[in-house]
């Protein structure tokens, strides 16, 4: 297990000692000058070979900066788990774009609003704690607002919450969405140094990949770019491979997968209106069907479109 520290500002020796209770000299600084530089991953103590590999995986481009921002939003305990599952999902996100996001939006809109409200009350609470709150707001009143938003969210969106919290691997302390006290604690202490605990280079690589296509927006929302598909094409281009073929495969499977999901969702949506009550089971069934259809189509076309490209090229060359 390697402990990696990333900061968003420069720390000199006395500041660091006061902040972490440890001497800066114990840190393995790759930068010099006796200070801790912002957005530079550090290990504590002597760097082992394994840790050096992890640092190398984290230290390219703007990764540390993104990782810092993302872990502020997700919490240090969760970002490793989230990046793990997101990388697994990343191929599927674009195929799912047609299906899940659409159906989800119908119900999800309200859920996102509830989470947003909860988050806003937490931010207001933090302002009050730091004496920056609006006039008249006390710690007690801000706390009550947090509770109310939390109760509302818990009462109305059980299923969404368990889905969202399931994505973030269960930690003993619980996630902020599930546990009000933990959310209040996170709001109270806004730490500028993030500590990540990584077990392997594999995890570090996943984290670095995740940081490339996940963006932390101002309000704490995370946007995952579909653009990551492009990376397959770019890799092929970089290695002097047949990148036109790869582009054809990626884009054709995207088109087929998206249309499959959209058509299934749209037809299913119309069919659902014929039921007197669109029960949650109906919605979930629709999401699952549309997503499965979309994914399956994506895989099938991906597996076959390479040979389509070859056939077309052969035919063109024979003219």
């Amino acid at each position, binding site marked *: 297990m390697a402990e990696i520290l990333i900061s968003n500002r420069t720390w000199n020796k006395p500041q660091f000692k006061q902040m972490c209770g440890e001497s800066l000299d114990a840190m393995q600084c790759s930068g010099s000058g006796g200070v801790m530089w912002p957005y530079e991953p550090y290990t504590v103590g002597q760097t082992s070979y394994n840790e050096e590999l992890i640092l190398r995986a984290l230290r390219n481009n703007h990764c540390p900066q993104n990782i810092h921002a993302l872990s502020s939003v997700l919490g240090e305990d969760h970002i490793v788990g989230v990046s793990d599952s997101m990388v697994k999902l990343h191929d599927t996100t674009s195929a799912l*774009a047609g299906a899940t*996001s*659409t*159906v989800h*939006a*119908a119900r999800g809109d309200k859920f996102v609003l509830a989470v947003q409200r909860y988050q806003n009350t937490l931010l207001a609470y933090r302002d009050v704690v730091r004496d920056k709150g609006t006039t008249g707001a006390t710690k007690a009143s801000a706390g009550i607002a947090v509770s109310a938003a939390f109760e509302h969210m818990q009462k109305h969106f059980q299923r969404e919450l368990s889905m969202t919290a399931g994505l973030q691997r269960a930690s003993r302390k619980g996630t902020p969405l599930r546990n009000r006290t933990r959310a209040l604690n996170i709001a109270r202490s806004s730490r500028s140094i993030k500590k990540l605990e990584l077990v392997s280079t594999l995890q570090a690589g996943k984290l670095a990949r995740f940081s490339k296509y996940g963006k932390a927006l101002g309000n704490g929302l995370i946007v995952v770019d579909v653009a990551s598909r492009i990376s397959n094409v770019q890799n092929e281009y970089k290695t002097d491979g047949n990148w036109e073929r790869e582009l054809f495969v990626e884009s*054709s499977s995207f*088109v*087929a997968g998206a*249309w*499959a999901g*959209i*058509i*299934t*969702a*749209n*037809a299913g949506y*119309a069919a659902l*209106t*014929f039921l007197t009550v669109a029960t949650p089971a109906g919605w979930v069934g629709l999401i699952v069907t549309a997503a499965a*259809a979309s994914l*399956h*189509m994506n895989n*099938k*076309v991906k597996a*076959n*479109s390479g*040979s*389509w490209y070859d*056939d077309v090229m052969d035919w063109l060359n024979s003219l």
Partner: protein
Amino acid sequence: MTFSTLLAIPFVVLLVGSVFFVIFGQVTMRKLRKKPEIRHELGIEFLSGWDILSVAQTLTLPKSIAQRIRRNSRGTAADPDLLYRYTTLFDRVLARVFYMLITLSVFAMFVLIILDEFGVFD
């Protein structure tokens, strides 16, 4: 004919349908979105541009079924009566061609994939 070749046929149709999607969006939808009377009756927009699909679906389905969907959906589906009033025959034909091309090709691809799962092409 191999599975791969057979799958390529509806895929080409799907691409043609996607071209019609753009044409329909530029010709009919642009016109409809400019009319204040119908602007908000084009169906729910899950994603930007989703209303293009729901308008095409409404114009393709038999009018009575579309009206029932509209009644049952509490206003989230496109309004067929208004749509028929504000579209020309050309718009309707365009919508039907676009919607049928996309739906049939996706459906054909599904059928092929399912047949392939049962080992018909082995």
